[in-house]
């Protein structure tokens, strides 16, 4: 049992939000074809508000802080936010597209001891990457940023969102990551736009392609083990909770809205109206999320995959019921093992709306 796992269990027992994902802006200098965000500023938290929020988060026991967006560097006060966060001794991770990261920014991130920088790269081919971001030259700038960050001995991770546009390029991005000396993460998650527009879901990869991805040894390690049929669930599984959302983690938007997770758009409160800890402890919505156990799930509790499925309660919520199945995860379980899910047997197998997976390749 790792120390991190033990720490997480302790936080769970004590009701401490160990991890917070804070989007500091939805504004962005790219216009990625698969992006679910609205890039306008509808009244972002000000720097004093963010400083106050970070102090509240530290007081609440938050250890891991992810700063994301939008593009974080669209905020002119980005480094003041990171300075404040590091002054409060958070473990800070930053997600960026890297376009605005030059030598001076890389050096500042090093000075501030940022733990990790995750950078989105969509293809090893500049024309494909730039077609996705809609910004000519963005691939070159992003790859340069990775080199600047690496030259400062910072830990960089490439995140490769997989869509129909760049489906065949992930091996090229993996090779690029190897050349740059950074880890690689694949993510086929496409979610509906914030305004409800589902047209971008056409960019999700088909189930048959997902099946191929699940059988790539360089991505999943031991394919036989990864794709093995699920073992029968025990009481520990049936009494367990689905994921950390609302238990030891939550998401805060640039406008101060608190949600269980970045992919779980259930509003739980706003830090402009309430203290964070009051929302975290007393929100009816968060407490509802926390009450869910595997045996309470309407369909999934009777599914063979219940113990191994990556069922996302946020995606289930977006489909209408946080205690119901997430068809995207049903599809994943099916494509991974070849075993039909309970939800599929009930006849509701349809197009997965929001495939979700994070695959870390073996080194």
């Amino acid at each position, binding site marked *: 049992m790792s*120390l*991190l796992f*033990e*720490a997480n269990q*302790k*936080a769970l027992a*004590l009701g*401490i939000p*160990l991890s917070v994902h804070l989007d500091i802006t939805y504004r962005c200098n790219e216009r990625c074809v698969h992006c679910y965000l609205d890039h306008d500023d509808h009244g972002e938290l000000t720097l004093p508000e963010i400083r106050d929020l970070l*102090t509240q988060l*530290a*007081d*609440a*026991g*938050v*250890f891991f802080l992810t700063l994301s967006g939008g593009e974080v560097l669209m905020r002119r006060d980005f480094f003041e936010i990171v300075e404040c966060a590091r*002054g*409060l*001794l*958070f*473990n*800070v991770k930053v997600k960026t597209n890297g376009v605005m990261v030059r030598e001076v920014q890389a050096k500042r991130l090093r000075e501030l*001891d940022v*733990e990790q920088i995750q950078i989105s790269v969509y293809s090893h081919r500049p024309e494909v990457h730039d077609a996705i971001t809609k910004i000519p030259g963005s691939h070159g700038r992003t790859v340069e940023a990775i080199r600047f960050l690496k030259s400062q001995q910072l*830990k960089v991770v490439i995140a490769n969102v997989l869509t129909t546009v760049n489906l065949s390029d992930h091996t090229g991005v993996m090779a690029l990551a190897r050349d740059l000396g950074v880890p690689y993460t694949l993510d086929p998650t496409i979610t509906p736009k914030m305004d409800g527009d589902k047209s971008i879901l056409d960019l999700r990869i088909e189930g048959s392609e997902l099946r191929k991805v699940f059988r790539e040894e360089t991505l999943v390690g031991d394919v036989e083990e990864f794709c093995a049929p699920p073992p029968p669930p025990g009481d520990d599984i049936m009494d367990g909770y689905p994921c950390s959302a609302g238990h030891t983690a939550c998401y805060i938007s640039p406008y101060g809205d608190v949600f269980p997770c970045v992919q779980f758009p259930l509003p739980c409160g706003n830090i402009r109206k309430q203290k964070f*800890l009051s929302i975290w402890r007393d929100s009816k919505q968060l407490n509802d999320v926390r009450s869910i156990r595997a045996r309470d799930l309407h369909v999934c509790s009777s599914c063979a995959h219940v113990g191994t499925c990556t069922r996302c309660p946020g995606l289930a919520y977006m489909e209408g019921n946080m205690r119901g199945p997430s068809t995207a995860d049903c599809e994943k379980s099916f494509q991974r093992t070849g075993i039909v899910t309970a939800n599929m047997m009930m006849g509701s197998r349809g197009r997965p709306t929001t495939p979700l997976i994070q695959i870390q390749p073996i080194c």
Partner: protein
Amino acid sequence: MEHNSLNERAFISDHYIARSSAIAARLVGGEMMIMSAVDSTFFTLNQVGTAIWQAADGRTPLSEIITRTICAEFDVGHVQAQTDAEQFVKDLAEHGILRISDQPIIEASPLPPIPA
């Protein structure tokens, strides 16, 4: 003189110790969680370790921390406390979590807030 590595010298309790700023830290349930920004090693300190780390202000010699904090607040003899504390400090220094010097250290990292 500040020491980053203690491999080449014997450790002396009269040295000064200071919390590094190249860390993330949080007090959870009375025990300190710390991650080194140098090598991402994750530590959880027990109550004694937490007390030493909190007292590592760069101005107080380790010997004084052992006497005034550890022996006074915990049920442990001085010899055992000194042996354990020296090893503890050496381990944390090797991961860049504590700084050690034979002179007072001006800049010690601030303490993380006490959870509400």
